[in-house]
């Protein structure tokens, strides 16, 4: 099913004017800062704001009653008077599915999403963040909606639960046959879960592209600062005091150990490194405090105003942001042998 939506909302001085497309089975992330209109866009897609046209395969779905939509809200909004099971079964009951069948399907959905059967009777206030997220996902997915809407699905979770929910989401999105629109201000969420990213700033779309395109050639300052970051996903293991090793398929990094996290191996961890925090050297650096030294050749240099983004094909590949002066001074150009360095404290574990 392919999604086509045209949304125009005016609220005082703020106008939101967005046309979006998403292919069958694909995930589109709407990435934008606070106040960019993300929430308004999500409400419109969910049919909660009038004056939106949302069509799937050419049919206006908001006219259908009830619309084939599932939503996971940022604050979950699980009904506090119902158990986890009743929450998950709610969309079926609202569609007049009989209670025993609705309950059986809810049990199945919750179990598939990893909520143990012993927790099905729990009230939302007794669920942990990760458990609540699973119930909210079950509620959104139980009708097998043609359009799944996710609002910052991992931002409220702690680092352990975040990794689990992120890989759970990745699995769900792979098997989900409908379209998914993910609204977030978290580049990690967008980069790790979406096939394509739409950058939304002040009610306007400033860029649409694959995560790799946005990372390598961001077209706005916001995109460069937030989306244009180096992203590494892998397994975190304790190294020495205050440090850990992040092992990714493309290479290893030394990172500062996140405060408050017990020293034990942790899977599905995402770390970000801002290109501006990466230093480039044309000779092998020695005796410095930077523990990450990526050795490779410059594969591309793209100019963006007074700055340049330099892609270094190392293990793992990294993007560095330098001034135009440095490009001239170091003679940076494709093929040049460089050492890119970053201190362990500059590699940040997923906003933690």
């Amino acid at each position: 099913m392919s999604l086509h939506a045209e949304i125009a909302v005016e609220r005082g001085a703020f106008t939101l004017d967005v046309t979006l497309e998403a292919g069958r089975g694909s995930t589109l992330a709407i990435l934008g800062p606070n106040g960019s209109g993300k929430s308004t866009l999500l409400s419109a897609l969910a049919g909660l704001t009038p004056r939106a046209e949302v069509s799937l395969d050419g049919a206006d779905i908001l006219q259908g009653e009830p619309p084939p939509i599932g939503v996971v809200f940022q604050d979950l909004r699980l009904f506090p008077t119902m158990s986890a099971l009743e929450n998950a079964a709610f969309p079926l009951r609202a569609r007049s599915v009989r209670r025993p069948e609705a309950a059986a399907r809810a049990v199945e959905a919750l179990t598939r999403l990893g909520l143990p059967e012993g927790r099905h009777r729990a009230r939302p206030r007794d669920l942990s963040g990760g458990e609540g997220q699973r119930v909210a996902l079950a509620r959104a997915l139980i009708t097998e909606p043609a359009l799944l809407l996710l609002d910052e699905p991992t931002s409220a979770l702690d680092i352990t639960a975040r990794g689990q929910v992120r890989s759970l989401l990745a699995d769900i999105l792979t098997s989900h046959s409908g379209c998914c629109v993910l609204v977030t201000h978290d580049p990690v969420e967008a980069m790790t879960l979406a096939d394509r990213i739409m950058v939304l700033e002040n009610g306007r779309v400033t860029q649409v592209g694959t995560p790799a395109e946005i990372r390598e050639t961001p077209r706005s300052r916001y995109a460069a600062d937030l989306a244009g970051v180096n992203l590494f996903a892998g397994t975190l293991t304790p190294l020495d005091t205050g440090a850990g090793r992040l092992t990714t398929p493309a290479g290893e990094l030394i990172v500062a150990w996140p405060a408050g996290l017990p020293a034990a191996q942790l899977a599905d961890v995402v770390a970000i490194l801002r290109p501006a925090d990466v230093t480039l050297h044309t000779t092998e650096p020695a005796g410095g405090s930077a523990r990450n030294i990526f050795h490779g050749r410059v594969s591309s240099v793209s100019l963006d105003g007074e700055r340049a983004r330099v892609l270094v094909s190392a293990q793992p590949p990294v993007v560095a942001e330098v001034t135009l002066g440095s490009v001239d001074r170091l003679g940076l150009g494709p093929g040049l042998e460089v050492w890119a360095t970053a201190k362990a404290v500059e590699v940040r574990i997923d906003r933690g």
Partner: protein
Amino acid sequence: MTTASRRSVPAGIAVLAAAAALFVTLPLVALLVRTPWSDLAGSLSRSGAWTALRVSLVVSLAAAALSVLLGVPLAFVLARSRVPGRALLRAVALLPLVLPPVVGGIALLAALGRSGLIGRWLARAGIQLTFTTAGAVLATAFVSMPLVVLAAEAGLRAMPPGFEEAARASGASRLYTLRRVTLPMLRPQIVAGAVLAWARALGEFGATITFAGNLPGRTQTLPLSVFVAQQTDPGGAVATSLILVAVSIAVLLLMRKRLFAA
């Protein structure tokens, strides 16, 4: 050490607080002292207290139910709708809280009495409300309904809108959302309003005696019975009052968590 200094109360305030406590306790203690304990059952049955208790329970429970049935929808309109004159509507709806109940009774007579605005049409249809238990229920509900409206409206205003949006986005109709999400979430406030309304109904005097009269077994509730007994049988009046005190204390104890929640 800061805790200790913050917890201490200036002497002047302590004296006034003690006076307040005494002011409330003394009459209750006096009531206990004056109660004819040796012949309690006798004085209760002589003054018709048991009949009055039965009328009181029927009238107060029916009035509380009527208050919830009509007061909750009114609270929805006041909290959610944008009808013009909403402020005026709220003022009118809450007026019985401040209006002397006797005035409420007179107003009800003017509307529903045998020669009243609507009452004369009802009388023609053979329906009489004055001097009936139904009339006593109406008079009592007139006074107690604002308490339900207040509680339910406050609950609706404090409810985050997100849950109803989530229900709508989950495919629920407006009615299903109301039935399965809004009303269950509003339940604590409706219960608190209903209990307050019931307690208020149990003590209602002025509107009932004005509109429904003072007929033993039909409209004579406990407060009316106390007032009548006071003229002829002071011991019976004290004994009957004791029932009301006991019921009131029981309500406060049962509801203390709901009413005094931080």
